[in-house]
């Protein structure tokens, strides 16, 4: 499943399960952190926190499989 398909599944599933969220996060591009601003730690941290709170940033990196 590519990221756009995962995103569509996420978008079209109200109150979706953690499985769908996790699938989406795992499909995020590997180079997600390449820019400090637009694609920085906020995204991975934000997405990961909502799934696995409490979590440290180092763990968040693992979740999105850099």
């Amino acid at each position, binding site marked *: 499943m590519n990221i*756009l398909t995962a995103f569509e599944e996420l978008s079209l599933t109200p109150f979706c399960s953690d499985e769908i969220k996790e699938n*989406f996060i795992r499909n995020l591009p590997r180079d997600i952190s390449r820019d400090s601003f637009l694609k920085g730690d906020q995204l991975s941290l934000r997405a990961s926190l909502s799934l696995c709170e409490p979590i440290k940033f180092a763990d968040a990196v693992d979740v999105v499989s850099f």
Partner: protein
Amino acid sequence: MTKEAEAHIKKADLVLFLVNEPVMEEWIIVHAKNAQNLATIYFSQSNRADAYRLITEEILLVLEHYDFVCVIFYGHPTVFARPGLDAIKKAKKIGVETKILPAVSAEDCLFADLEIDPGDCGCYSVEATDLLVYQRLPDISSHLIIWQIGMLGNLGHESIVKLEAMELFVKYLLDFYSDDHLVVLYEASFYPGIDCSIKKIMLKDLVGQRISRISTLYIPPWKKNKANLLVLKKLGLS
């Protein structure tokens, strides 16, 4: 994204974009006939104002070569997105037909996530550095939304909140609010189904908090205004 915006992106001869997450970037690249990322220009300048000026120039430049150009900014295209608005105004002056399609801003997300209705007692929305530099006067009986708290006193790109700036900022707000007034550091979610971030703290504890570039500070009304009886009478509402 609305269906109308989607249609514009798919039909445009060229799509210029500045987005803050990778999925939308991927979506644009897949669906646009021809796409160009403005992030390269954005990050080429250490001062954000210079970057915005260059982006405006780039938009006007490509208009000379393409009939139908679509420009995408994350959030709402005229909310904290100066280059788009500047480009629209300049393009109109040279006779180019223009159209701005509204979208969901961080403030819209905040209203939903914090369950706030700006209509109940008014709402003042202001940029953090602007509030401090121009000593804007907040209405303590209204909702106060302070944008870009994580970029306070910072004209560049780096996400560094200067301690001195934040201390100055909090000191200013304490002229209006009590130090134990509960405020919210808010971050909208990038994606549906993923939670937003809501951190409630006392105003006095704002200094030293982890604040990101996408954080917005929400200060709830502190005191209620009393209705002016004379005005009510004149309006026939008493």
